[in-house]
């Protein structure tokens, strides 16, 4: 698709190619993706779903990747709060039905996406909700139960004869199933852009076409020209 299709409709501000995913965000996203893949593969190996890894290798891989991911998440959480990007994840329930309707039907009939990206709001309502779920439920369920499991020797004497360890295993496994389900949906959703690979390219390059207000254009051109694609 060419830029011509993006010609602004009357009354709408022009779209500009702007850096919307900073270098750190992209680093965070892709390293997280890799770690989640490693964790899924080694984790389901440990669970007994497949036998492609020797148990010992799977344990070491899973533990190492988990610790790295926890560190990455800790730093990213810090990043979210210092940069104010955490606001991206605030749910906007009012916009939700329109987005759901679009993915269920509109996308098939070629209807326009009910939401357009802005600098202040990079995600649509459904995305925000999904990522929020990921960040406050699936992620924490995994890392908290994982840390509890890793520290088993510290509480094992107390847990003898209790459901302690099975409960931890249950939470971890349940959250892992939610995680892989999230990931396949997430990956599929990346194909729903202008082209099948548009969103993936965006997450690699960081640039996307975004509606900018006149004030934003003026600000970016004056102060942050490096964020605007020439």
């Amino acid at each position, binding site marked *: 698709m060419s830029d011509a299709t993006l010609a602004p409709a009357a009354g709408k501000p022009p779209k500009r190619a702007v850096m919307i995913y900073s270098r750190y965000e992209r680093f965070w996203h892709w390293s997280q993706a890799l770690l989640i893949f490693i964790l899924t593969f080694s984790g389901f190996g440990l669970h*007994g779903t497949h*036998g492609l890894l*020797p148990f010992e290798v799977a*344990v070491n891989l899973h533990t190492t990747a988990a610790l790295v991911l926890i560190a990455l998440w800790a730093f990213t959480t810090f990043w979210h709060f210092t940069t104010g990007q955490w606001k991206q994840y605030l749910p906007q329930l009012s916009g939700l039905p329109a987005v759901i309707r679009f993915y269920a039907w509109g996308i098939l009939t070629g209807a326009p996406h009910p939401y357009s990206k802005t600098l202040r709001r990079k995600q649509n309502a459904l995305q925000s909700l999904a990522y929020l779920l990921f960040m406050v439920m699936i992620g924490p369920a995994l890392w908290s139960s994982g840390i509890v499991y890793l520290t088993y*020797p510290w509480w*094992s004497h107390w847990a003898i*004869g209790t459901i302690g360890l099975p409960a931890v295993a249950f939470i971890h496994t349940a959250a*892992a199933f939610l995680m892989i*389900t999230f990931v*396949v949906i997430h990956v599929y959703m990346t194909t729903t852009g202008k082209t099948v690979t548009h969103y993936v390219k965006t997450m690699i390059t960081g640039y996307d076409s975004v509606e900018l207000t006149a004030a934003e254009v003026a600000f970016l051109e004056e102060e942050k020209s490096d964020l605007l694609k020439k």
Partner: protein
Amino acid sequence: MLRGVPIRALWALLIAFAFAGPAPAAESAGPAAIAAEKSKAAKTSTADHTKFKALEGPFASGPEVTKACLTCHTEASHQVMQSIHWKWDTISPTTGKRLGKTRTMNSFCGSPLSNEPRCTSCHAGYGWTDARQPPPNEPSNVDCLACHDKTGTYKKIPTDAGHPAYVERKVGDKMVPPPDLAKVARSVGAPGRENCGACHFNGGGGDAVKHGDLDTSLIKPSKELDVHMGVDGQNMTCATCHTFNAHIQSGSRYATRSIDTHGKDLPKDDHDRATCESCHGAEPHKVSKLNDHTDRVACQTCHIPEFARGGVATKTLWDWSTAGKKDANGKPIFIKDDHGHLKYSAEKGDFAYGENVRPAYKWYNGTIEQVNVDDKLDGRIEPNGILTLNRLMGDATDPKARIWPFKEMKGKQPFDPELKTLLVNHVFGKDDSAFWTNFDLPKAIKFGMEYAGLPWSGKIDFIETRMYWPITHMVAPKDKALNCAECHSRDGRLAGITGVYLPGRDHFSWLDLLGYAAFGLTILGIAAHGTARLVMRKKTTGAH
């Protein structure tokens, strides 16, 4: 190797203390032959037994030698007579029950009662011919040589209540010359593997029969077979771990420690070293994840992948119910299998053997509930009709319990179906009731029960039994220890262990079902959605 040095040094000290008597008279050179006998112990000990006047001999019997030993080692007999090696009688520290070889039943020969001169050939003394009574309470009846002979010529005759041969004797098919008791007496030193092994490797009536992890392959083992005792490695003896305090050994199957929280045994300590933790501590692994296992898994479980690894098969089944068959000529039948093992013996019944056997795994807290010869079996026989002769206590909820490896011995042995007790079988003796002479079981049992002074209804039935022998010897080198997946897998070695969540083995079936279903349905949904998108796009493009 650095670790080996202090252990050897400790040994040298030990030997020095154990065999240091009062200084011998300097003049007593003795005959040249005696001088030529260079006792190994003398190299490190302060006493050279070849120089003792009291040991010049000649000696006519074992007790005479003992008397000579006692002239210097004044307390030795009194100490030995306190030990289980002498008494065959002990109180379980966990159950308080009185146990011991003369009371507690096993799935091999059953009971030594009425079979004494044979069974008591492994008693640490001389002349115990009636096991209904305590052993003969005379210091000279303690057998010093069985444990301290270093010539290798001193052997107790299997049928003489602990005595060696004093004249040339026929044992089996071989003529056994009598040992030169004076020479044996002058050879004494710290017990070696062959001393302990003479009885412990041959328990149950032959090499490897009983334990499964103790047999003659351990006399000169490779470190591949036993990483501690290997002559090409640490070359430890039994007593390196089974340390003795005043002739009382540490380590006992009547008082096993399932977990040793005391940990390393230090020089100024209790000198009780019969657990792995005594030397290795509670967290011996460099990989910390492995140390996370030591609270619930015994060291032996991973480090002894198989027992009976030394090329000697151990007995795994003994079925007394078939004993006594004779051929057409009235001769008792004996049949050997392809490996030369007796698989049927008219004297003993059917046998099965195993080499390189994978242990059975069970929770075990150190308490064993044994069946004694006079115990009523009511409530002990399981619904499947099996009687466990030594019930292992402990489960996952018990902090003292760990998962231990065992040799499972299967038996079928005579019992009284009316009075519900096991029966004493009089197998050996120079009388017309002994089963191995007459093959008449009721007659042998009658004799045995009367001898033991126990009631018998006159009825004989056979009950299937199980016995569990903790596996703790034949520790493999660490590279041969079990890898994780041996247990952390769906049908691994610990498939029968209950009460713990074992990653890789366990899962919540319905959670898995739900999880896989959610994942699968999502993929299906995506496929449907994607297909719909493709089809619709074609339609829209086609329409343009």
